[in-house]
C-alpha cells in the first residue's frame, strides 16, 4: 500500500466523521421518565404560601448574556436570607438549549431556568411537551413585600398574557421592554427637528433630514424582522388590537387585513423615496445600530435593550430617545402615544424539577419590590414589577422608555405570534421584510409572502397551535 492508498482510505474514513447527522443524536437520547424520584414539598402556611421545604436545595441556571449573572446571585442571596438551610446551586451559560437538553430528556432538569438568548429553547416545543410547570399558584400568592397585594397585582399590564399558553401562565418574562422608533435627542435639538406624530409629517421630516445630508432610516438588513415591528404597530394603531390577535391566532388572511395593507403602503414610502441609508440591507443589527450611533442615520427600530447593547459605542451626550410609531391619521383607533410594551427575558420552572415550590418561591423573590429594584439598579432594565423604578436613577434612554410607557398607559399593545411560532417571525416574516425594505418587492407581495408563511404554520400539523382572546 503506498502513500496514495492511505490518503484515499483516510478520505473514505473522513466521510463517516464529517457531516453532522450523527451529532444530533449524540446530543441527547436515552434516559427516560423517572417518576420515582423524590420531589421536595413542605407545608404551606401564611408565611410560606407556596409550601417550600426549607432545607431543599435549589438549582438555578442563568443565561449569561447582556445582563450578566450578578443580579441572579443577589436574588439567590435574598432567597437564602429567608431559607438559610437551602443550598443554592448557581450556574450561567450562553447555550441554554445545548446545556439543558439532555437533562430535560433525562427528566432531571434544574429548578429555575432563564431560557433566553440565541441558544434559547423554542417555547412551542417545551409547552407542547408539557415540560414547564404551571405558575398559576405564584400569581395567586401574596407579594413578598407589598402588603395586601398578590404577586399578580404587582405586575405591569401584559406581563401575564405574554407568558400564557392556552390561558395557563407558564413563563415568567421578567423584564419589561418597549418597542419603538429611536432617535438622538441631541441631533434633533441641534438641527431643530421635532419628532413627527403623524405619518405625513414623518415623511416631510424625512425629506428634511435627507436634505441635511443624513439618511433618515437604517435597519438591520441581515435581521430585517426588526422592521416588521413598526409596520405591525402602525397597523394596530390604525385598526385596534384585534389586528394583532388575528395574526397571533393565525386567522386566514390576518396579514392581509385592511389596516395591515394601509400600514404596509405607508411604510413603502420610505423605501420608494430612498429614505434608507445606502447599504442597510447588508448590515447586521450591531452594524446598523452603530451606523445610527455615528449619526449616519436618524431613525432605527429597536427594543429598549438598545441603550445597553450600544453602551460601548454611543458617543457621550447622544441622548437616545424612544418614540411610538407615527399615527396614520385621525381614523386611528389608538392614540399616537400607544406603544408596544411587552415582558421579555423568560424564566421558567421545568415541570420535572425536583424543587418546584422552591422555584416558584425564587420567582416570588425576584418579583418582590426589593428584588426588582436591585435588578433595575444592576442592569439598567425595567422589570415587570409596577413602580419598581421609584427612587432608582435611570440612564437617558431608559428614562425615555419609562416616560413613553407612562404616556401609553392602558393603550399599550402587544403581539405574541413570535413566542407561539418562533419560525414564523425568525424565518418567514424575516425573509419577507428583507425583500420589502430593500425594495425588491412591493407592499402587496410583502403581505402575500407573510400570509403564505402564516398559512404554512397553520397547516403544519406537527406544530401545536395556541389561541388568545382579544
Amino acid at each position, binding site marked *: 500500500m503506498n502513500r496514495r492508498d492511505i490518503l484515499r482510505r483516510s478520505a473514505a474514513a473522513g466521510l463517516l466523521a464529517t457531516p453532522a447527522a450523527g451529532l444530533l443524536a449524540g446530543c441527547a437520547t436515552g434516559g427516560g421518565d423517572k417518576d420515582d424520584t423524590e420531589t421536595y414539598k413542605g407545608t404551606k402556611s401564611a408565611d410560606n404560601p407556596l409550601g417550600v421545604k426549607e432545607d431543599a436545595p435549589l438549582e438555578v441556571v442563568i443565561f449569561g448574556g447582556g445582563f450578566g449573572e450578578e443580579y441572579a446571585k443577589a436574588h439567590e442571596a435574598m432567597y437564602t436570607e429567608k431559607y438559610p438551610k437551602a443550598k443554592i446551586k448557581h450556574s450561567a451559560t450562553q447555550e441554554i438549549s445545548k446545556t439543558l437538553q439532555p437533562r430535560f430528556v433525562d427528566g432531571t432538569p434544574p429548578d429555575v431556568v432563564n431560557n433566553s438568548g440565541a441558544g434559547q429553547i423554542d417555547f412551542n416545543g417545551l409547552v407542547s411537551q408539557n415540560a414547564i410547570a404551571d405558575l398559576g399558584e405564584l400569581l395567586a400568592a401574596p407579594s413578598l413585600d407589598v402588603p395586601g397585594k398578590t404577586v399578580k397585582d404587582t405586575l405591569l399590564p401584559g406581563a401575564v398574557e405574554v407568558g400564557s399558553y392556552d390561558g395557563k401562565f407558564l413563563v415568567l418574562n421578567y423584564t419589561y421592554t418597549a418597542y419603538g422608533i429611536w432617535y438622538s435627542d441631541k441631533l434633533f435639538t441641534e438641527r431643530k427637528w421635532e419628532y413627527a406624530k403623524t405619518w405625513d409629517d414623518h415623511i416631510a421630516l424625512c425629506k428634511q433630514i435627507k436634505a441635511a445630508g443624513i439618511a433618515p432610516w437604517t435597519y438591520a438588513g441581515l435581521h430585517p424582522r426588526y422592521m416588521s415591528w413598526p409596520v405591525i404597530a402602525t397597523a394596530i394603531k390604525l385598526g385596534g388590537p384585534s389586528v394583532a390577535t388575528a395574526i397571533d391566532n393565525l386567522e386566514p388572511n390576518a396579514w392581509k387585513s385592511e389596516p395591515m395593507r394601509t400600514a404596509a403602503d405607508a411604510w413603502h414610502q420610505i423605501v420608494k423615496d430612498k429614505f434608507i441609508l445606502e*447599504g442597510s440591507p447588508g448590515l447586521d443589527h450591531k452594524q446598523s445600530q452603530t451606523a445610527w450611533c455615528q449619526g449616519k442615520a436618524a431613525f432605527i427600530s429597536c427594543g429598549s435593550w438598545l441603550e445597553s447593547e450600544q453602551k460601548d459605542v454611543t458617543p457621550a451626550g447622544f441622548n437616545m430617545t424612544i418614540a411610538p410609531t407615527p399615527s396614520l391619521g385621525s381614523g386611528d383607533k389608538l392614540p399616537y402615544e400607544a406603544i408596544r410594551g411587552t415582558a421579555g427575558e423568560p424564566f421558567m420552572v421545568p415541570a420535572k424539577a425536583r424543587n418546584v415550590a422552591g422555584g416558584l418561591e425564587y420567582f416570588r423573590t425576584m418579583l418582590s419590590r426589593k428584588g426588582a429594584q436591585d435588578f433595575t439598579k444592576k442592569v439598567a432594565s425595567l422589570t415587570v414589577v409596577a413602580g419598581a423604578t421609584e427612587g432608582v436613577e435611570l440612564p437617558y434612554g431608559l428614562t425615555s422608555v419609562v416616560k413613553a410607557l407612562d404616556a401609553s398607559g392602558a393603550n399599550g399593545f402587544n403581539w405574541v405570534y413570535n413566542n407561539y411560532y*418562533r419560525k414564523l417571525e425568525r424565518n418567514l416574516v424575516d425573509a419577507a421584510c428583507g425583500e420589502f425594505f430593500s425594495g425588491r418587492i412591493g407592499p402587496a407581495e410583502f403581505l402575500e409572502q407573510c400570509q403564505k408563511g402564516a398559512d404554512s404554520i397553520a397547516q403544519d400539523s406537527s406544530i401545536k397551535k395556541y389561541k388568545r382572546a382579544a
Partner: protein
Amino acid sequence: MKHGKWPLIVTFLVPPVLLYVVFVVSPYLQAFQISTTDWLGYSADANPVGLANFKALWHDDYVWNALKNNAILLALVPVLTIVLGLFFATMLALGGRKGRAGVTGVRGGALYRTVYFFPQVLSVVIIALLWKEVYHPNKGLLTASLHGLGLPAPTWLGDPATAFWCVLAVMVWSNVGFYVVLFGAAMSAVPKEIYEAVLLDGASRFTTLRRVTLPLLWDTVQVAWVYLAIFALDGFILVQLMTNGGPNFSTDVIGVRMYDTAFGSETKFGYASAIGVVMFFLTLSVAVLSLRVGRRDRIEYS
C-alpha cells in the same frame, strides 16, 4: 506469529474501535431511528411515525431550495478550488523555468506558499467574521475599493443576487491554500527528469500541466475532489455565521436547514434527523461516485 502480538493488538486496537463505535457509529444509528419518530427533543416522548418525516421533506420547498444551493456548490467549489490550487502549485513548483536550464518555481515561492496557507491556520469562525467585515456595505474593504475607483458596489451579503456568490468565494478562498500545499507536495515527488524532457520537447506550460502534471497527480486530485465535495455538501459554519441562510433563503444550505430545524426556529429533532439522514446518503453517494468515476490506472515511478 510472534509471541505477545495479540495483547499488543488488543491494547491498541480495541479501545479506539470501541470509542469510535460508541461516539460515532451509535449516534449515527440512533439518528436513523430518531428520523422515524416525531421526537421534539425536550422530553423522552417520541412516537414512531414511520417515513412521515421523509414524506414531509419531499414536499418541503425550503429543503429543496437548500439542496439546490448545495448542488451549485458541489458543481463549483471543487472545480474552482482544484483549478486554482493546481495553478498556484504549478507556478510555485515549475513557474520560473523560462530562460533557465532547470525546472524551478517562481521567486519567493516559500513566502507565497505561507501566504496561501494562511487561511487554513485561521479558524473558520474567524474567516467568516473577517469576510463579513470585508463585505460591509458601507465601510468594507471591497466596497471602499470599488468606490475608490469610482465604481458602484452592490450590498454583497444583503442582496439575494450576490450573497450566494460572496459566500462561495469565501469557501474557495479559505480552501485553496491547503490544496496548493497538497499538490505542491505531490509535485515535488514527481521526478525532475520528466519535466526536463518535456521542456526539451518544447511543450507549452498548459500542455505540461494537462498532459504531464495532472495525470501524475491524479490520485491526489481525486482525494481533494472527495474532500471538497463533502465540504460543499456541508458548508454549514461559513453560511451560518455570514448570512444564516438569508437574505430570503438565497444562501441556505442543507446543514443550516438541519441546525435551524433542531436548535433554531423550531425544535423538531425527528425531522432534523431525517434531514441528517438524507445528508448522510447524499454525501456517501457523492463520495462513492467520485471515487468510482475517477478511477484510473496508477502510474508508478518510484
